[in-house]
């Protein structure tokens, strides 16, 4: 049946938590009530990327973007737009600081600067329907591979495309496949690494939620190239919706004969299993992930032998990240030259970043390699909220570093980021402004890594806790002369002596903040001041008696009963009782609370 209009309701995790399932249900009911259910179809899609504005509905084919919908909006929206044909302006997107709404997706800066390959189906298909995927050229690449390409052809194509591992390290994918194909041993396994442990990154979850078949198709092609018959998707248990959609997708692919025995009658067997993680950051490391699937203690092991030679149960194993797999079908279908034409000399194609933190348009963006940070932060991200000063962007999670504001014109690719002491990582971009304390941020990452260190190597286990201890001391105002130099020395030692990626990269957040924001460290140590007013031990809250109106809001909200004063008279904070939680600062409507 043909419908004149499709309503694409975003049902990614972020929008779901804003109530998008309810919005979808209400839309369906309202459309039925108006007798439009034969003309308008409501589709639940995966994450559309613009998470800050959820719940989101996109009207196709008009391409109209509705945002921040609430249940009360729905009857009006349906009546105005779908019955009377008048798009509702007040529910459309208005760029920060402007007054005129932008009606269509393609005109919104957040979307127009993006180049979609891995996320090409986002917002356009129902992730739980394989037919939607097939309708968008889905599984055509698999047909091409099975009918007209040999293993060597596939590997050559991927090699020529210049695709590199999207998990962060950037190892050439084609080369990885070739090593695995050529190593002796049978059976061979392939694994999709969806253990997205980086705090602040969620692109893998989004791809699995919005386009699970792209991952499955990519893995099928990889399996054909390498000669594997069994595959695993190792996914975080914190992503229930993604696991659910992937289960459905695998089931549907089996029904269609795209997984299992004798796929498409070409004598090619391949099947997939889902393995759930249990919340350990180190399991994103490939040897550790393999141990986790095997059910033994998931500590990383020494490489070589690399998994391509001796991986899962001692067999040759190929591991790639979700995003890498999702790129594969497009490369096969459109050719290596097309893909190699996007990006920079050494980094080809696109990369999905999760743009979060102190930025207006938080969400997922896919951009060509080589785009500058300025374009990402200002053109796509819409700048920093509240007119605050942009301070830097933390790229690559706990393994990455902070790129300072002075390097905003840096083109983003693997090499350039490494040069400035950061790294691509899985692609989390956390934007920080003047209210973020860099020492506190470094301490935050060390707290994370020292907690997640598996403890196998002394340098990582002891080194991370020693660095954390020093950073904690600095944020408590007990920093000593020489601490910075010692941190630098210790960081280098941990880098040199650790076995796996976790230990080798965990000093990055500290080293890069020292390199770029040394003055902040010095302010903490020498002046005992936190310039961003974050470190509790170094700040005090005071009420400005001239501005305080005695409204009592702060006193009512203070959890420690530290604020006293009569109604309509200036209040006062008892510094001995104050726990520096900052609630009074947030609730005061008269800007009368000062932080020093």
């Amino acid at each position, binding site marked *: 049946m043909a419908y004149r209009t499709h309503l694409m309701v975003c049902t990614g995790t972020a929008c779901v*938590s804003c109530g998008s399932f309810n919005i979808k249900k209400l839309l369906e009911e309202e459309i039925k009530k108006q007798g439009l259910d034969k003309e308008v179809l409501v589709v639940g899609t995966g994450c559309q990327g613009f998470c800050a504005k959820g719940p989101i509905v996109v009207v196709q084919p008009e391409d109209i973007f509705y945002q921040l919908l609430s249940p009360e909006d729905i009857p009006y929206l349906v009546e105005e737009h779908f019955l009377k044909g008048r798009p509702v302006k007040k529910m459309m997107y208005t760029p920060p600081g402007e007054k005129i709404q932008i009606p269509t997706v393609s005109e919104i800066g957040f979307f127009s600067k993006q180049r979609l390959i891995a996320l090409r189906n986002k917002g356009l298909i129902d992730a739980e329907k394989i037919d939607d995927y097939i309708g968008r050229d889905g599984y055509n690449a698999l047909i091409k591979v099975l009918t007209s390409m040999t293993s060597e052809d596939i590997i050559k194509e991927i090699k020529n495309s210049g695709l590199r591992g999207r998990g962060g390290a950037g190892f050439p994918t084609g080369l990885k496949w070739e090593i695995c194909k050529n190593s002796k041993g049978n059976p061979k396994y392939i694994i999709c690494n969806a253990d997205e*442990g980086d705090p602040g990154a969620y692109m893998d979850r989004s791809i699995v939620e919005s386009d699970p078949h792209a991952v499955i198709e990519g893995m099928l092609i990889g399996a054909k190239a390498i000669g594997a018959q069994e595959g695993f998707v190792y996914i975080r248990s914190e992503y229930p919706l993604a696991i659910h959609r992937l289960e459905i997708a695998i089931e549907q692919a089996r029904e269609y004969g795209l997984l299992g025995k004798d796929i498409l009658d070409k004598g090619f067997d391949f099947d997939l299993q889902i393995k759930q993680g*249990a919340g350990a950051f180190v399991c994103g490391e490939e040897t550790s992930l393999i141990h986790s699937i*095997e059910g033994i203690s998931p500590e990383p092991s020494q490489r070589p032998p690399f998994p391509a030679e001796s991986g899962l149960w001692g067999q040759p194993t190929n591991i790639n990240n979700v995003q890498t797999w999702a790129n594969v079908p497009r490369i096969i279908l459109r050719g290596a030259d097309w893909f190699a034409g996007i990006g920079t000399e050494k980094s080809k194609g696109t990369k999905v970043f999760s743009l979060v933190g102190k930025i207006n348009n938080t969400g997922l963006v896919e951009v060509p390699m080589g785009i500058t940070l300025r374009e990402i932060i200002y053109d796509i991200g819409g700048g920093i909220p509240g007119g605050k000063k942009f301070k830097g962007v933390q790229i690559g999670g706990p393994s990455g570093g902070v790129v300072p504001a002075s390097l905003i014109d840096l083109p983003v690719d693997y090499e350039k980021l490494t040069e400035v002491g950061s790294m691509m990582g899985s692609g989390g971009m*956390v934007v*920080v402004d003047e209210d973020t304390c860099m020492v506190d941020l470094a301490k935050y990452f060390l707290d994370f890594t020292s907690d997640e260190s598996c403890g196998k190597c*002394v340098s990582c286990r002891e080194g991370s806790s020693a660095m954390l201890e020093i950073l904690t001391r600095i944020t408590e105002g007990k920093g000593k002369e020489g601490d910075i130099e010692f941190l630098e020395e210790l960081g280098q030692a941990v880098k040199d002596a650790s076995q796996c990626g976790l230990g080798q990269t965990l000093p990055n957040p500290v080293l890069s903040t020292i390199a770029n924001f040394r003055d902040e460290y010095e302010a903490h140590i020498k002046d005992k001041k936190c310039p961003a007013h974050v470190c509790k031990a170094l700040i005090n809250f005071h009420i400005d008696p001239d501005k305080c109106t005695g409204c009592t809001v702060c006193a009512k909200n203070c959890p420690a009963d530290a604020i006293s004063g009569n109604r309509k008279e200036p209040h006062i904070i008892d510094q001995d009782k104050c726990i520096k*939680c900052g609630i009074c600062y947030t609730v005061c409507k008269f800007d009368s609370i000062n932080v020093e």
Partner: protein
Amino acid sequence: MGNKKVGSVLVVGAGIAGIQSSLDLANSGFKVYLLEQTPAIGGTMAQLDKTFPTNDCAMCILSPKLVDCGRHPNIEIITNAELGKVVGKAGNFKVEVKKKPRYVDEDKCTGCAACTQNCPVSIALYPVEKIYIKLKDEDLKIVKPILEKYRDQKGNLLPILQQINKEFRYLPEDILRYVSDELDIHLADIYNIVTFYNAFNLEPRGKHIITACIGTACHVQGAPGLIAALEVELGIKVGQTTKDMNFTLETARCFGCCGLAPVITVDEDVHGKLKRADIPGIVRHYKLMEEKQDA
């Protein structure tokens, strides 16, 4: 104590720690009595292949010390013996040692091992007493199907533990012992896995699990403040459960809802873009829900 060495020392337990202490003491001039319960010194380390965290060969470290210990003039090894009464105070102890019979003349035995090889009766020296865990019927009803589902799969421990953790909201000790018996996996190995991952709990948890995200995006957007407010509101610290067993407060490293930072979840519900002042309202909502149910 100065340079004058007096008296003697009793070291109880001849594992690697006991051996090293004895050697150090003996080298500083003390007479050392090294007491050991089993027939031989060496302890657990002698049974290990490698040592943590350097992966050094265990016997390569241990055996020179065993030899040193055995022929040190200041060390007297007393094996197959137990510590009885200890009386006295620092500087003057009297100790009773109970020595078990060996049925072999220790002065003449050279340890050639010919007797053990030729003994016609082979019995385990120390039979492992296996205690089979009996579970309550209602627990068994839940655990058994889980075990059956995964029993023949490779790498099945993790999914089994995940299912049990989901059903009981934590991993009860007797059930872990049962799993260990059934799958023939040592309890220590299970404990290793359980404590490695964040998703498992060894303590009972409350009816509602409140989890505050402490991912990077949430951190810079004020997650520490939310946690402080939650702690005040619930009267517990992170990782604890309220006395009425209604709420457990936990933290997680990123739910992948960074666009909504800062985020907390209560059970399956996600609450995003929160401010500290929002917390009391949310907690009150669930508290009221509980009160209604009780009434």
